[in-house]
């Protein structure tokens, strides 16, 4: 286990380095510089700006400077917000994104297991078909279609919840964004759990338990729940990545001042350093969380643990 953990952690480092290098190269392969605009600058002024951002140095030198910065947690200056560094923007905006993502994932997991369990126990009944159809809808219909329609209904027509994050206070303003972000993952978890629960319920040891007269409830609690939950753990990695991607859209729709909004605005304004920093930040987050999920799976699955 320890050996596996060490190998896995060592394996993640080159991946992260590749992410940083590729992102850096892409940005610097851009045709034209970041300060090209309709305004023509004096050559001296342009030289000064380039020097201020170290853009006049050869590329390898720029990369090593950037890499050393990233290791210290410094992503350099932002081109469109000269008064802030990219790191300051990231540190200021990640808490709200984290809150949004963590709540969505938690709700998706709990409700997904619940609905998946109901569908598995009521297999091939109307309830099962209804839940499966709903799950497929949740998976298929994109967040950015569901979100405005829910806003139109719950905020504009009924007026129950604020339509935007800044338009409300307290927890109320979190409800719609969290629900919308959770829905597709909830649907995935429900489908996955239904399938794995059915498989477990058909296994020999569950049949034996049933033959010994155990009630369905106690079979699920003591025998079926744990093995059926395992596939969900291995899906946590992709789910985290999907929530991160989804949060970009959700933050944009509800005007939540998190990482995603800065990412999109940076992308639209061609703020290269901000986008570069956020790509690396998101990449590091995804790689690290995947690492934890992998280790968790190893730890939980007795079949893998023994080896």
């Amino acid at each position, binding site marked *: 286990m320890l050996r596996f953990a060490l190998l896995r952690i060592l394996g993640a480092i080159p991946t992260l380095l590749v992410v940083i290098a590729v992102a850096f190269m892409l940005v610097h392969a851009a045709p034209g510089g970041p300060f090209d605009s309709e305004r023509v600058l004096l050559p001296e002024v342009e030289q000064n700006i380039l020097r201020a951002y170290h853009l006049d140095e050869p590329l390898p030198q720029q990369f090593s400077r950037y890499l050393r910065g990233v290791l210290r947690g410094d992503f350099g200056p932002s081109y469109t917000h000269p008064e802030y560094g990219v790191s300051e923007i990231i540190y200021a905006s990640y808490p709200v994104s984290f809150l949004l993502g963590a709540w969505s994932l938690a709700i998706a997991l709990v409700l997904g297991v619940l609905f998946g369990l109901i569908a598995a126990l009521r297999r091939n009944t109307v309830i099962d078909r209804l839940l499966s159809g709903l799950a497929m809808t949740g998976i298929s219909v*994109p967040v950015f279609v569901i979100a405005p*329609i829910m806003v139109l209904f719950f905020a504009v027509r009924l007026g129950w919840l604020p339509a935007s994050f800044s338009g409300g206070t307290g927890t109320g303003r979190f409800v719609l964004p969290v629900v919308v972000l959770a829905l597709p993952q909830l649907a995935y978890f429900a489908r996955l759990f239904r399938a794995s629960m059915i*498989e477990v319920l058909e296994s020999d040891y569950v049949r034996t338990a049933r033959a010994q007269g155990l009630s369905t409830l106690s079979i699920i609690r003591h025998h079926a729940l744990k093995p059926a939950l395992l596939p969900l753990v291995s899906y946590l990695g992709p789910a985290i990545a999907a929530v991160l991607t989804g949060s970009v859209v959700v933050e944009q729709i509800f005007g939540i001042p998190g990482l995603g909004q800065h990412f999109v605005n940076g*992308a639209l304004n*061609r703020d290269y350093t901000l986008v570069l920093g956020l790509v690396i930040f998101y990449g590091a987050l995804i790689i690290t969380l995947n690492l934890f999920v992998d280790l968790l799976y190893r730890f939980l699955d007795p079949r893998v643990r023994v080896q």
Partner: protein
Amino acid sequence: MNSTAGIHRARYSIRGNRLVLICLGLLLSIAALSIVGTLVSPHSVGKIAFDQNFIGPTLDGGHWFGTDDLGRDLFVRTLKGTQITFFVAIVATMVSLVIGVSYGALAGYVGGKTDAIMMRAVDALYAMPFVFFVILLMVVFERSLTLMFVAIGAINWLDTARIVRGQTISLKQRAFVDAARLDGVSNIAIIVRHIAPNLLGIVVVYVTLTIPQIVLFESFLSFLGLGVQEPQTSLGALVSEGAARMERAPWMLLFPASFLALILLSLNFLGDGLRDVFDPKSNKT
């Protein structure tokens, strides 16, 4: 099982699967409508008429889906957007298909160390934050349809490569491959002529599972303003415009949103159904 028997079996089970047929019919109808509708409508796609903005859906005047904030006919724009969405999906899928199949077939056929290295690379690529890379690409380079095809196609080939590799490994141990090799057929010719045709069924399944992902991703980019650019439009871009003006003109949101939702639902049901038919490993319970 030879390949014709496989197709036979598939034809029978597809016929038995009503949902797959319904979804296929729905998709074909939407595709046909997107082409015929633009010809039938009295309005042209880019025509701006400020005096006719925010007209609700109506039968007279020919604005069947209403007009947008600039007075452009939403029916024609929705159908044009659908065309672009289909177009991007098909081309980007082709890109992902070519990369995935050749990569997977090569790794599986050559085997040994090459295979091990190639598949380790795929594992490593799975960990990459591709969505963010594509956005970075769209920021750095001029946003064009071609860039989008390549970028979206280039990130969606990993699943296909894995599946194709697995199939190729099992195929290359079969007698007809040995026979071809004894006949002196070159390796490339064996892959192209003997292995590739037998991959057809499984590849069809993974293509249908890939297309909705690509549609979703394209509309995601367009929604953020990073995908298809004006004067062209796509369903994602239309949903974005509609969302910004839904309080004044809910139809601007609801029509493109329903088209997109319907397309994605049909594609996902279709992919699911085909997987049950073709993929012996998928156990539908």
